[in-house]
C-alpha cells in the first residue's frame, strides 16, 4: 500500500468522508439473523397497517350489530367484534394508532433525552448536578403512575398521548447520553480542538453528536418498543384513545370481555401484534448495538 501512487484526484474535490465505519456496521447487522428478521417484520407490519386498508377496505366507523361476534369466515378473515367491526380491518386501523403513537413518542423521548443529557454532560458542574437530580426525581416516580394520572385527567387524543408518553420516558435515554458525552468531551481530539481555539458549537456538532449517533439510535429503538407497550397498557386500562378510534391495547381490552365466550379472534390477533412489534424493535436494537460497538472490534 505504501509504494502505490494514488491517481490524483481532481484538485477541487471535496475532502472525502470515511464511510467504512458504517459499511462495517451494516455488514455486521446483516450477519445478525434475528435483527434482520426483526427489521423485515417491522416493514411488514408497517405496510400491513398503513397500506393494508387500501387492499382490504372495511368499515370501522358504523356499528353493524347484525354482524356482531362472528367467527372467522371468508367474508371476515378474522371474524368481527361485539359491534360488528371486521377484526382484520380493525387490526390495521388500531395498529396505525399504536405504531404512530409508539414511534413518535419514542423519538420524542430520545430527542428530549439527548438534548437534556448532552447539555448536562457537556456543561458539567452545578448545571449537571441540578439537571441530573431532576432526572433522578423523575425516575423515582413510577412512569406508569404519572401516565395514568395524566391520561385520566386529560382524556388525550393521539397527539396528547404522544406528548405524555414522550415526557414520561425521556429520563433513561438522557442518562445514557450524558454518560456518553462525559467520556467524549475528554477525548484527546476534543481537547486538541479546544486548545487551538475551536468553539463549543464545533466540538458538539462535529465530534460529540456524530460519535454518539450509535448510542442515540440504539436508545431510540428501545424507546419505541417501550412506548408501543406503554400505549397498549394505557389503552387496555381504557385511558387511551377513545372509541370509535382504537389501538391494539384497546382491542385487547374490548376483546377480554368476550374471552369466556370463546371468541379467541378478538384477543389473539392484537396480543400477537403487540408482542411481535415489541420483539422486532428490541431485536433491531440489539443488532444495531452490536453493529455499532467499535470496542468489540
Amino acid at each position, binding site marked *: *500500500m*505504501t509504494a*502505490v*501512487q*494514488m491517481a490524483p*484526484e481532481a*484538485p*477541487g*474535490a*471535496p*475532502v*472525502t*468522508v*470515511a464511510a*467504512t*465505519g458504517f459499511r462495517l456496521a451494516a455488514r*455486521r447487522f446483516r450477519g445478525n439473523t434475528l435483527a434482520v428478521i426483526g427489521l423485515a417484520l417491522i416493514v411488514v407490519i408497517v405496510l400491513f397497517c398503513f397500506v393494508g386498508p387500501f387492499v382490504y377496505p372495511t368499515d370501522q366507523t358504523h356499528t353493524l350489530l347484525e354482524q356482531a361476534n362472528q367467527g372467522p369466515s371468508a367474508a371476515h378473515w378474522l371474524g368481527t367484534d361485539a359491534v360488528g367491526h371486521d377484526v382484520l380491518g380493525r387490526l390495521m386501523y388500531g395498529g396505525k394508532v399504536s405504531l404512530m403513537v409508539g414511534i413518535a413518542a419514542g423519538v420524542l423521548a430520545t430527542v428530549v433525552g439527548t438534548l437534556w443529557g448532552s447539555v448536562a454532560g457537556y456543561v458539567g458542574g452545578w448545571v449537571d448536578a441540578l439537571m441530573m437530580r431532576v432526572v433522578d426525581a423523575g425516575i423515582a416516580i413510577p412512569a406508569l403512575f404519572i401516565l395514568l394520572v395524566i391520561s385520566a385527567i386529560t382524556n388525550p387524543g393521539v397527539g396528547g398521548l404522544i406528548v405524555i408518553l414522550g415526557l414520561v420516558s425521556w429520563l433513561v435515554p438522557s442518562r445514557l447520553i450524558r454518560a456518553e458525552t462525559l467520556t467524549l468531551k475528554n*477525548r*484527546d*481530539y476534543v*481537547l*486538541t*480542538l*479546544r*486548545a*487551538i*481555539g*475551536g*468553539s463549543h458549537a*464545533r466540538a458538539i456538532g*462535529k*465530534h460529540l453528536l*456524530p*460519535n454518539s449517533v450509535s448510542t442515540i439510535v440504539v436508545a431510540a429503538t428501545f424507546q419505541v418498543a417501550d412506548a408501543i407497550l406503554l400505549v397498549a397498557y394505557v389503552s387496555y386500562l381504557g385511558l387511551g384513545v377513545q372509541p370509535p378510534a382504537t389501538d391494539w391495547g384497546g382491542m385487547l381490552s374490548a376483546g377480554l370481555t368476550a374471552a369466556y365466550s370463546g371468541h379467541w379472534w378478538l384477543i389473539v390477533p392484537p396480543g400477537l401484534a403487540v408482542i411481535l412489534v415489541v420483539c422486532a424493535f428490541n431485536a433491531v436494537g440489539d443488532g444495531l448495538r452490536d453493529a455499532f460497538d*467499535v470496542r468489540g*472490534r
Partner: protein
Amino acid sequence: MTNEPILRTTDLGVSFSTESGTVDAVRGVSLSVAPGETLALVGESGSGKSTVALAAMGLLSGNATASGSAVVAGHEVVGAAEPALRALRGSTVSMVFQEPATALDPLTRVGAQIAEVIRNHRDVSASAAAAEAVDLLRRVGIPDPESRTRSFPFQLSGGQRQRVVIAMAIANAPKLLIADEPTTALDVTVQAEILELLRALAVETGTGVLLVTHNMGVVADFADRVAVMLQGEIVETGGVEDVLLRPEHEYTKRLLAAVPRLDVAGDRPAAPVTDAETKPAGRPGAAPVVDLRDVSVTFGRGARAVHALAGIDIAVHAGETVGLVGESGSGKSTAARVALGLIKPTSGTVSLFGQDLRTAKGRDRRALRSGIGVVLQDPVASLDARMSVAECIAEPLAVHRRGMSSADRRRRIDEVLDAVRLPRTLASRAPRELSGGQRQRVSLARALVLEPRLLVADEPTSALDVSVQETVLEVLGELQDDLGFACLFVSHDLAVVQHFAERVVVMRQGIVEEQGTTGTTLLHPTTDYTRRLLAAVPVPDPVLQRQRRTERLASLAAVTA
C-alpha cells in the same frame, strides 16, 4: 531434577479466529525456563509475547486455539481441561499483570484477597491464612503490614498495589512466575524497587520467572536470558549480555539501535552550575513564546483541595525545545495544559506570544490560539474515528481559516502529509486503518497545518514502540529545524528528553525541582531528587546496569543509614 526446566514450550502456536479470518499470532515458539532463572521475552507490540505468556497459563481467550506443547512443571497445558488448569494456576504457576489497579478487587481488603488465594489451593484455617497474608505483605516490603492488611486497594499507591499483586502471586510458592510488563504502568523509581523485589524473591525461592516486556532497560536489569520475538516467532535467544551487547539477528540490532539511551556522567557532579541556568529565561533578549510565571493551580477547595501546581516558572523561547519531566502526579501535564489555556491558573500569569492570556478576549484570544499546535499521548483517542485523515488534519483550518477554498485546503493537507513523511494517499483513509505511529504523525500534521509558533507535545511517543518512536521524533526534530517553532515536550522518559530537548525542567509534586540545559541538568544534577530519578532509569546494557544498580542501592543505603 534441578536441571529439568520449569516451563518448556515446544513448537507452540496460537491462532485467533476473527471477523476478518484466522490470524496466526504465535508460530513455532520453543523456549524453556529453568528453576531460579529469569527469561525475558521481548518484542514490540503485536509480536505475540503476551500471547505466549497467556498460553503458558492456559488463559487464552475463547477464539484462540493453541497447538504444539507447553509443559509447566511436568503438566501439559495445551489442550488441558479447565479443572486441571485451575489446580495449576495460582499454585504451580502464577502471574503478575501490568496494571495493578485492575488486577485487584477494589471492594475487598488486600489481606482478604491474599488469604483467598492461599485458601484456594491449601487447606488452612481462615486465621492461619490471614496471618500468612501479613507475612507475605512483609516479604514484599509493605511497611506496617499488620494494619495494611486491612486496607482497600485504593488506599495504596500504585507501587504498593503492585507489591500486593506480587504477594498474591507468590502466596503458594509457585515454581514459575509469569510477569507481563510488571512495571510498565509504574514510575521509574517505583519500577526499580519492584524489579529489586522480584529479583530478591526469585533468588530466595528458586522460582523461574518468565518476564514479558518491551523495555530493554528492564531486561538488562533483571533477565538472565533473553528471547526476542518478531511477528509471532522467536528470532534470537541467548544470554542477556550476548543478546543486548552482541546481537546477531538484524531485527535485534535494529531494535536496540532505536532504544534511546540515557547518557550518564562518568564521574560525580563537577563544578556547580552557572547562574545562567538557574534563571528560567535561558535566552535573554527575545521574549519567550510562552511564559508561565509563578503559576499555581488548585483543584477543588477547602480540605479536599489538591495543589497540582505550586508557583512554577517555565518559559519556552522560539526555536528551542523544553523537556518537561517528572513522575506521575508531578504536575507536568497540568503545566502543559495551563500553557495551552485548557486549565485556568488559580494564580500567576501565563503569557502566550507576549500577550497575557487572561486579558486577551474574543478575537484576539482566538488569534493567539491559532499559533498553537498540540500533540497528545493516545494515538487512538487523538483522532476522531468518524472522520477521515484529511478531515482530521483540516480541522484547525476549518476553525481559523474559514475562507480557504477547498483546493487550497487540499493542497495544504498534502503539504503537511509530505512534511510528516506520510503518503498523500492516506488522506482519504479512516484513522482506524492506520498504525499507531502513523496516527501520531497525522496528529503532528494537524498540529502543524497552521504553521504554529508553539508546539505542545504531551507524551507524544509514550504509547509507541521504540522503532516507531525513533521515526516520530526524527520527523519532529527535522520539522522544528525547518519551521523554527518552539516546543514544550512533556515526557516521563528521561532518555528521550535528553536526546530531544535543549533545556529540561524537572518537576516534582507541583513544583519545579530544577531546570537548566539538558547537558548539565541530566548529567550533573544539583538536587537529590533528579539524581535519584536518573539513577532509577535502567539502561539497556547489562554490565553498566549492574554497576548502576549497585551504586544506586549503596546510595539509598547511605541515605537510610
